[in-house]
């Protein structure tokens, strides 16, 4: 017996012998876990770095100072100061005259065209607005800052390099030399880009702004909120407080859970087939967008609201019922007020998701090129994420930084909404 045991290796020795290997694999496993987390965080960092480094320059814009002579002969030869007459004058002539005066040695037709292309076509509208707002300007001279063309802007910001061969860039050498002259005279500077925040969409990158898309997003979200919040809360109250447990309520619950996981593009198909094709609502309208997003966020709000209602302890209900409140009074005066912070948190998170949603809105035609700022929920509009999608598709180099900047604005809004939800939760969270 004893002999047998000694001929076999002892268990403890076997274990001891295997320990280094096992500890090594332990370390390996652990470091793989750590590396995974690091990779996740690295992706996050790369994403933010990529967007911020591409986009921060869009908050500035190159402006050129022009010596503008509001020539009465050109603008209003009859001296009537009539608005209709003033609005139809060729204001680009003013810009050309001013540029021609700055560079008197440019005489060749082709060169002149190159010179004029340095200034954005938006300068024309800017001048028209100045004159329309203040007709007294006519006949006077004034220094005016006008936006430069997007190619100029890209060169000044360093997105287009000077050392690439002339044939491979959009700006010719002469144009760059003119720009250098302007810069030396301090007539060409980078200033804060207010147009980006106040303009609608435009084909010209230097004039394109996010205000239209932002208003579209706001109108869409208002429709979504008005529809999904009461309906979601009502559903949650019914299922949590009143519903009997039967096949019907089971069916409702299964449906809600499934809708929460249906791809968002399917909701777009629903919106297209039902609201646009069948009910013939206006295309591209925030009304339809809001409806579709409301269906999409409804499950989120219902699930969050049920959680909040569930966390109110039964003792509250029993106490209310005990002093003679009806079931409905119990819910409305006692349970609901205690659950409201949780419901609001869930709603804000649902709204944040709706704000970032793109695919279903493509289906219902919110991808149109819309310059005007929408003023109600029936106007054609686009929303911020769709605007990002449209700009990301544009070939102009200058749209890359605008897209990144629009993403920064969108992420800013999402951040604020989520921070609000977290604060709300922290502040009103009650442990029973």
């Amino acid at each position, binding site marked *: 017996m004893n002999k047998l045991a000694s001929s076999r290796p002892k268990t403890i020795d076997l274990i001891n012998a295997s320990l280094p290997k*096992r500890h090594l*694999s*332990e370390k*390996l*496993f*652990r470091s793989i*876990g750590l590396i*995974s*987390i690091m*990779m*996740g*965080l690295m*992706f*996050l960092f*790369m*994403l933010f770095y*990529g*967007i911020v480094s591409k986009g921060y320059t869009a908050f500035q814009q190159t402006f050129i100072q022009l010596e503008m002579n509001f020539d009465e002969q050109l603008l209003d030869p009859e001296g009537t100061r009539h608005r209709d007459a003033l609005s139809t004058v060729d204001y680009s002539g003013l810009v050309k005259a001013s540029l021609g005066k700055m560079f008197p040695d440019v005489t060749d037709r082709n060169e002149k065209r190159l010179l004029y292309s340095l200034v954005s076509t938006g300068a024309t509208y800017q001048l028209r607005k100045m004159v329309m707002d203040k007709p007294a300007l006519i006949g006077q001279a004034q220094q005016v800052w006008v936006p430069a063309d997007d190619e100029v802007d890209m060169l000044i910001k360093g997105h287009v390099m000077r050392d690439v061969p002339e044939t491979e860039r959009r700006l010719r050498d002469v144009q760059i030399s003119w720009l250098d002259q302007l810069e030396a005279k301090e007539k060409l500077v980078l200033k804060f880009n207010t147009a980006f925040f106040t303009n609608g969409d435009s084909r010209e990158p230097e004039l394109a702004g996010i205000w239209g898309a932002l208003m579209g997003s706001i109108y869409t979200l208002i429709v979504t909120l008005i529809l999904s919040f009461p*309906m979601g809360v*009502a*559903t949650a*109250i*019914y299922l949590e407080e*009143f519903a009997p447990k039967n096949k019907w309520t089971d*069916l*409702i619950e299964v*449906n809600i*859970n*499934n*809708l929460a*996981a*249906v*791809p*968002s*593009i*399917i*909701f777009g*198909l*629903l919106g*297209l*087939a*039902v609201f646009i094709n*069948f009910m013939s609502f206006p*295309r591209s309208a925030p009304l339809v967008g809001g409806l579709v997003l409301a269906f999409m966020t*409804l499950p989120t709000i219902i699930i969050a609201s049920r959680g909040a209602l569930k966390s109110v302890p039964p003792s509250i209900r029993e106490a209310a019922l005990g002093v003679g409140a*009806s079931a*409905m009074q119990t819910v409305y005066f006692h349970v609901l007020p205690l659950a409201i912070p949780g419901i609001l948190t869930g709603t804000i998170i649902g709204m944040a998701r709706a704000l*970032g949603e*793109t*695919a279903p809105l*493509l289906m219902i035609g919110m991808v149109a090129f819309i310059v005007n700022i929408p003023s109600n929920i029936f106007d054609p509009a686009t929303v911020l994420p769709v605007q*990002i*999608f449209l700009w*990301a*598709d544009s070939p102009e180099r200058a749209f890359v930084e605008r*897209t990144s900047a629009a*993403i920064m604005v*969108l992420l800013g809004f*999402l951040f604020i909404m*989520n921070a609000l939800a977290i604060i709300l939760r922290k502040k009103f969270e009650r442990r029973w």
Partner: protein
Amino acid sequence: MVACFYFGRRRALVVSNGDIRKLNSLPVYYGYYTALWCGIPAFIIFAFWQFSESAIITNLVIAGLPEDVTSLSKQQLNLVINEIRNIVNGNIVAGTARPEIAAAADRYRELQTISNIALFVVMMAFGLTGAAYALSRVDQQHRARNKVENTILVFLIACSTIAIFTTLGIVLSVLFEAIRFFQSVPITDFLFGLQWSPQTAIRPGQVGASGAFGAVPLFVGTMLVSVIAMVVAVPIGLMSAIYLSEYASSRLRALSKPMLEILAGIPTVVYGFFAALTVAPFFRGWGESLGLDISSESALAAGVVMGIMIIPFVSSLSDDVIYAVPQSLRDGAYSLGATQSETIRKIVIPAALPGIVAGILLAVSRAIGETMIVVMAAGLAANLTINPLESVTTVTVQIVTLLVGDQEFDSPKTLAAFALGLMLFVVTLILNVIALYVVKKYREQYE
């Protein structure tokens, strides 16, 4: 309605002679009761009116049109009506239209005004009648509270059925259009065809307008992108979840868990931009240096970025299930001398496996339905390939390209998008149902 509320409440006070203890319900309930009797009939009238107004006015206008217009075919008549409506809405300047059309538009506008006035009068009449009836019912014994509460309960039940109607709406709308599609293209061609080129001929004999609707390349493309995404997301997500729930100090956990979840909160269009402008050129340059030809719209770039998006999805779902494994199982393994990693691999993961699988299934359904990343970073060409370096297209990309822009609901091209949508809905639904079932079953084990 506000006035009704006020009068109802005052009436209740009057019948009780100011002593509200004599009333069956609190005075406000009599107010609500009256307001509901005023508002609901008026609202029903309003809804009914809005629904039928347009058809009635159109018919009246058509009746007033000259003989040669009304004798036109149905489609041409529709065109005329559209023109009239456009003039009414001010989309077309009236001066350019034919005189009889302009006259019809005037008549349309006139009828609209009459209709609006009539609507207002009828609504007021019904509302006031309802309110008067309610007021006459108010007395000391009237059970106003119960009636108001029952109305609210009906409203709550109606809201809760919306989830069912939404599902029904999705199924019906997608199914009907898909059936119309399968009438022109046989379902077997759609499911098993190897050629996808959804151009339909505008004129007969057009080149490349064969209109092939074989969806296999799309399914393969979708699978390819999803598989790449899962290859990225599952190991990283799962290992992060294991590390966070088993190894990490509470400080690291508190810091990195929300950070990872930021990835889930970023809109997909942002990922699409990232994929198209940063990742795709990166892979392309990388491939060039290795002598590989990577397409600038490769499945690889779209898949990898989609994987990044799904990491937090996998990690938080697995984190939940790993967390739910009872501590006693771990303690048992430690007491037998297992190292921590052995415990995790041999005890915790097998115990949590059903939940993890369910989480991965949910993530796959997410990947299949994901749209913006592939629209922006994957291609449009329907290549039947499993080479991740080439450009592929997916179901969602095709839905978007088919439906953005032209909107004729009778061409197979548009209807094909609904058939694809039906496939997408069915597949994701099956995945979700399986996943939810597994999760539910698994959760009950340890509760």
